[in-house]
């Protein structure tokens, strides 16, 4: 299994601090899923992340988004999110046609099915089962990773490549560093809203429910709606042959944050989120087909209005046959 882990040390008062619990856990999950050393990526100048990743048994390299292969799972630590923002996770999910989860407490791969447990807030958990590639942002509330001893960290420092920025740091025993802040998530909002935000959709949190409405030109609105529907598998990216592709309106005075990632001249194969073919990979054989048999945008009616009001991931209440995509098994009161 191809496992990729993105981690970065936290920053406290402008100073680089240690790795947060979530980043450590992301590495641990990565090693577990890979059945050995996973591939870790961290900022080139991040000495803490490099050292910790090597000490934890991962193979480390500098973060280079353009040179990535197609992994089965990408584990993103809260430190990396703090550094690069939620857009990173969204961009990766988009690029690798993967499902995206925030605030993940645990992830397991068994019988070709992913089981992802997300923190749904207020003591609730979402347990989602699905197939196919996933991008998960590990929560700081996830189970602790095994302790990495000072001896291992010291030994790892020897193998950490000498970087220009690292050389400035004192070469003696590890200097005392401030502890990373213990917070639940960088944005302190629900995972669902972060997922929407990562795809350019406004937050749907209760306090600013009124602000979720999108005001822009019809073309941009249509584009965002399309992205939303495509992301959640309600429609396919395959457009009718005779249909003009949507183009962002040049008159828009407000650009959705993911507009630039949507190609102006159609979707690339890697961005296509049509039902996966059995031949694509062994792991994807069991992935359930997407809902829509009619994949044209023009054929969609407002039948999705009910579920849409609840948010994209709350699919457990829908008994409609043919519902597709990940489904919630149950909600647990903590």
């Amino acid at each position, binding site marked *: 299994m191809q496992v990729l882990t993105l981690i970065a040390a936290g920053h406290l008062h402008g100073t680089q601090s*240690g790795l947060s619990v979530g980043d450590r856990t992301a590495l641990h999950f990565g090693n577990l899923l890979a059945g050995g050393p996973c591939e870790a990526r961290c900022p080139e100048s991040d000495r803490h992340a490099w050292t910790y990743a090597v000490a934890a048994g991962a193979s480390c390299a500098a973060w280079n988004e353009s040179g990535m292969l197609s992994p089965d799972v990408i584990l993103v630590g809260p430190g990396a999110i703090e550094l690069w923002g939620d857009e990173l996770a969204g961009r990766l999910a988009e690029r690798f046609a993967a499902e995206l989860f925030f605030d993940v407490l645990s992830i397991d791969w068994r019988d070709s099915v992913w089981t992802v447990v997300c923190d749904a807030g207020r003591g609730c958990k979402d347990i989602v089962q699905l197939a196919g590639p996933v991008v998960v942002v590990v929560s700081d509330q996830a189970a*602790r*990773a*095994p*302790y*990495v*001893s*000072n*001896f*291992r*960290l*010291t*030994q790892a420092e*020897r193998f950490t490549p000498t970087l220009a920025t690292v050389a400035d740091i004192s070469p003696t*025993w*590890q200097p*005392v*560093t*401030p*502890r990373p802040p213990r917070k639940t998530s960088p944005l302190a909002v629900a995972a669902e809203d972060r997922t929407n935000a990562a795809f350019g959709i406004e937050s749907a949190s209760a306090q600013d429910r009124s602000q979720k409405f999108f005001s822009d030109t019809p073309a941009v609105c249509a584009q965002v709606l399309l992205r939303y529907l495509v992301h959640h598998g309600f429609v396919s990216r395959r457009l009718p042959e005779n249909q003009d592709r949507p183009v962002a309106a040049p008159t828009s005075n407000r650009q959705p944050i993911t507009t630039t990632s949507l190609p102006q001249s159609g979707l690339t194969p890697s961005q296509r989120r049509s039902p996966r073919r059995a031949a694509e990979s062994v792991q994807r054989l069991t992935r359930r087909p997407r809902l829509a048999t009619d994949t044209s945008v023009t054929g969609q009616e407002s039948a999705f209005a009910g579920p849409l009001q609840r948010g994209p991931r709350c699919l457990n209440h829908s008994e409609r046959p043919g519902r597709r995509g990940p489904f919630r098994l149950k909600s647990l009161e903590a």
Partner: protein
Amino acid sequence: MFGNEAITREILGNVPHWLAVLFYISATIACSYAALSFWQRTRSSRKSQAPSTPSPVATWNVRVIRVLRYLVFHEQLRRDPYAGWSHLLVVYGFFILFVGTCLVFLEHDTPLHFFYGWFYQAASLVIDLGGLAFLIGLSMFLARRISGCSTRILREWWVTALSGLLLTIGVSGFLLEAARIAIDLPAHEWCSIVGYPLAVGLRSAGLQGSTAVFLQQILWAGHAIVCIAFFTLLPWGFFGHMAYGLTSISLRDERRLSHLPIIPLLAAQPPGATSWINFSPRDLLQTDACTTCGRCNEVCPAAAAGKPLRPRDVVLELRRNHTEHAVPLPDTRLQLSDEVLWSCTTCAACNQACPVGIDVYDKIVDLRRGKVELGQVPASAEDVFASVAEFSNPFDRPNAERLHWARGLDVPVAQDGEPIETLYWIGCSGSFSPEGQSIARSMVKILNHLGVNYRVLGTAERCTGDPARRMGEEGLFQQCAAQNIRELQSRGVKRVITHCPHCYNTMRNEYPGVNPSAAGWQTQHHTEFLAEQMAAGKLEGSKRLNETVTFHDPCYLGRGNGIVREPREILSTLNLPIVEMPRHGETSFCCGAGGGSMWLDVRGSERIENQRYAEASATSASVIGTGCPFCKTMLMAARQASTAADVPGPKILDVAELVVMAEGL
């Protein structure tokens, strides 16, 4: 030379020649087998991958004297008088019988001729007395084992069987002697004070002539068989302690009980142990020496509190692991649960109690190191490690708060780079816990009163690394030690005074192992300092305190470093009557805070500090005195838990606080 040559006996008389030859062959095979087993075990121990320890050969004379003294006086064993005297009788009896057998061998199988006349009679008398002592000692052991009056001994059938085998050797030896004498009942055999009366009894029972000869042959054969069985089983289990025990005692390091030797951090090998292969040959030899006596279990505070740790089980598990997995495989880890390992308070009572010199708690710390390297540590321990690494104290508080205890006091804080002659080391507990802060404030008042030119490091002070080390984080400890040694060296410190026995033990005993230059300053516990000042007449205790004190000896002070006289001298100078608890001085009982147990909490049926508090309260003393901030914290917690709100329990005070009260500071 020795008188009448007729006064002797025929050796191997009436024993058929073939039987004697068979005995010699069997005995040779049995001894060879035993020697081979010892050699194989030693060779297996040498496969250990632990870092090599200093060779004991350089100090062989000291070690030989230690063993002889141990054998002659049995000081360690006689801490339990019944077991000690039983063992003394068995050892003396066994030695005499062994020498007697050697004399018979020399007389019979060498050209030497000395076994006659008065020498023969004297030897017979001594050998019979030795045999009698051997039987009495063994009977005492078996009586205790069978009656069940001792709860600490291991109730395994094979231990009883092996003791029974020894008893059979003794009894069959006397019966054989009686049968030999009964054949013609010579008068000069009266000096066989056990064999002769038995022979008279056999004669009076009608045993004589060919029947007596036949009985002698049967008994000789039986005696020979049990002796050969003994030789064969010599390296096995319980019997092995005869050889391994003495070797273990001879190889034991001369160090204070709380002193954990520094282990080198080698790049190729992580610290710690998960299976026998990670222990040194000496550690493995120690496990072979275990007699399963259970003294370690008896004194262990964790076991007393119903926690899952039994020190003997740790030793036996290590021995089993070594025996069953001579070829180490990845899955040959010791079968010890995490709760067992994290229950230890590192009080060193097990090391102190062990009669064959097994360093039990050293092994537990080594196993904890192994757990740390595997990443399997309790969350609370991980928090302590993180706090020590990031805040330089285990209390999870910013190091900038280190001087909060000194508000309102005139405390001289060392400036950057200022040389220090006398350093008052506050310690993390003194800086952050209310109980420790009170001791630090008292000490500062005393030091100011005495006009001592001292300094405190303030926020430049860091944890000594003791909690991390006792919890198995050796790398973190060595990091803390290196930083502290560098700090103290840069300031040219001559003397360190501290009120924390853990800091005292670490700085005095363990820092020189990290960096030999750390031995350049004198480390004093505040009880030593105060006793010294009182002896010089600088502190007298001008105010009369109407209190009765019972002193709780902290493990790292009393047992660990032998400081038991100084606190009592201070209390005596203050005219405070002392009532001792049953367990005091070097054999004190732990408060339950050591070894990181201040932060770890493995559940038991009872809490250690509650047991100690109950013991202290039973003395009816109005004050429980102590010399450690951690002990004070634990005892205060126990008082809070055990005392009804309307009945105030005894006060819990450090000796420094008592001095301040008595001096009116």
